[in-house]
């Protein structure tokens, strides 16, 4: 049962990502990717890691994709031309993917009734997860977080305010 669910979710994830890459409308692409992340969260849940599933939704769907939307709106990336072809082509794929994700989550609940109350049969709790993350894999976590810090400092360095040559001449 779990393996069938896994393959359905994997298909949803791949289809959503493919649609995201090929979609001309950037906001639609973001919505496809969000559906992909929901499928990924359910896959983590199937693997017995509800905490990672929750973080997947909070961090990727709730923060990173929202940032993408912000950038799309700041840059005004909306397509100028009206979309061609029949209307169903635009909403049927999205609806099918969403329906598949909802169907899979319902199946998970019926397969493992205790999942409905948040305590699935086999899972890693927040405490064990934290101990593993900051104990056994502590070094790796620190290295990755340093890398993120370097990336942030690098981005700040590249994007810092530099007065242009003519501005300097005007002020001097």
């Amino acid at each position: 049962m779990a393996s069938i669910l896994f393959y359905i979710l994997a298909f949803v994830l791949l289809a959503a990502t493919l649609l995201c890459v090929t979609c001309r409308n950037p906001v639609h692409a973001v919505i496809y990717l969000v559906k992909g992340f929901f499928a990924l969260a359910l896959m983590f849940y199937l693997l017995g890691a509800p905490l990672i599933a929750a973080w997947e939704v909070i961090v990727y769907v709730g923060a990173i994709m929202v940032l993408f939307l912000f950038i799309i709106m700041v840059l005004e990336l909306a397509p100028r031309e009206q979309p061609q072809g029949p209307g169903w082509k635009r909403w049927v794929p999205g609806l099918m993917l969403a329906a598949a994700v909802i169907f899979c989550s319902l199946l998970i609940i019926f397969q493992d009734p205790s999942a409905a109350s948040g305590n699935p049969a086999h899972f890693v709790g927040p405490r064990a997860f934290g101990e593993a993350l900051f104990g056994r894999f502590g070094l790796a976590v620190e290295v990755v977080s340093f890398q993120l810090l370097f990336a942030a400092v690098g981005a700040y360095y590249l994007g810092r305010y530099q007065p242009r040559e003519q501005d300097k001449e005007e002020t001097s």
Partner: protein
Amino acid sequence: MSDLLLSLALILVKLGLIFGVILGMAAYLVLAERKILGRMQLRHGPNRLGPFGLIQPMADVIKLITKEDFMPDQADKWLFLFAPGLTALTALLSFVVVPFAPPLTIFGRELPMVVCDLNIGLLYFLGISSLGVYGVVIGGWASNSKYSLLGAMRSIGQLLSYELAMGLALIPVVLSAKSFSLTDVVMSQADWPNLLKHPVAFLIFLVSIAAESKRTPFDMPEAENEIVGGFHTEYSGMRFGLFFVGEYINLVIIGSMLTVLFLGGWHGPLLPPIVWFAIKVLFVAFCFIWARGTMPRLRYDQLLHLGWKVLIPLALLNLLVTAAVLLAIG
């Protein structure tokens, strides 16, 4: 199997009850807001329909349903239709993890007074509240209108800036409860409410949650005298109604979360627990309406400065001090 059916039936009954109560509360909060604001501005507010205008919410609903529902030219049709529902849905979903009374024991069966006591309830709340922005943003973008787009952009910037501070302010609460479950958080406040144990975290959370749910003085995304109606400029009829209801459901959610996390939940002397819970929620809602009646709107750059340069460093410092103190006490 019958056990599964019974627990599913219980969950459905609780969902139905909460759905009804929350929608009713949201409808009457609209009336309360109009009445209280009216009094603060030396007016009467709505007082024609029924005693003290108590049937006014019905009239509002009938008006919204019978209004024409139109769509701007070249709007992104499906997203435009879908966005208001998403807003109302995410607002309603947050209530699933809110415990509103201690567990009851009926027929030898323990019945928790919460739809679903997730062991990561707090994370669930944070996740759902960050999903709430999608309805606003997609609605604003799909309207194909400058004002809507401006409102949507403002709401994203605001949400991203304050979400971090809100999450950081909740960590001291989790540290002292030693659990992410909201029931455990309430249990840990049996002696002293978290308001007294973590006053700084309370203030940060109060400001951030007001900013997250776009209440005055942080209502830039729908500042009516700058950008018409912000993200809901182009909406009419019941679709506008869904945005509107979502906002007032959010007010109930703010009240419940503040109550559960900082005001001691259902704990209180004399009165039954559920009454204490309702009193606290309504008091918080009243304070937010009061703030709307008295405080001017912030400028957008002031809002971002407050978020990034004051609240986040303060929350980090508070977290450090709280963790050190808790470690020292043991």
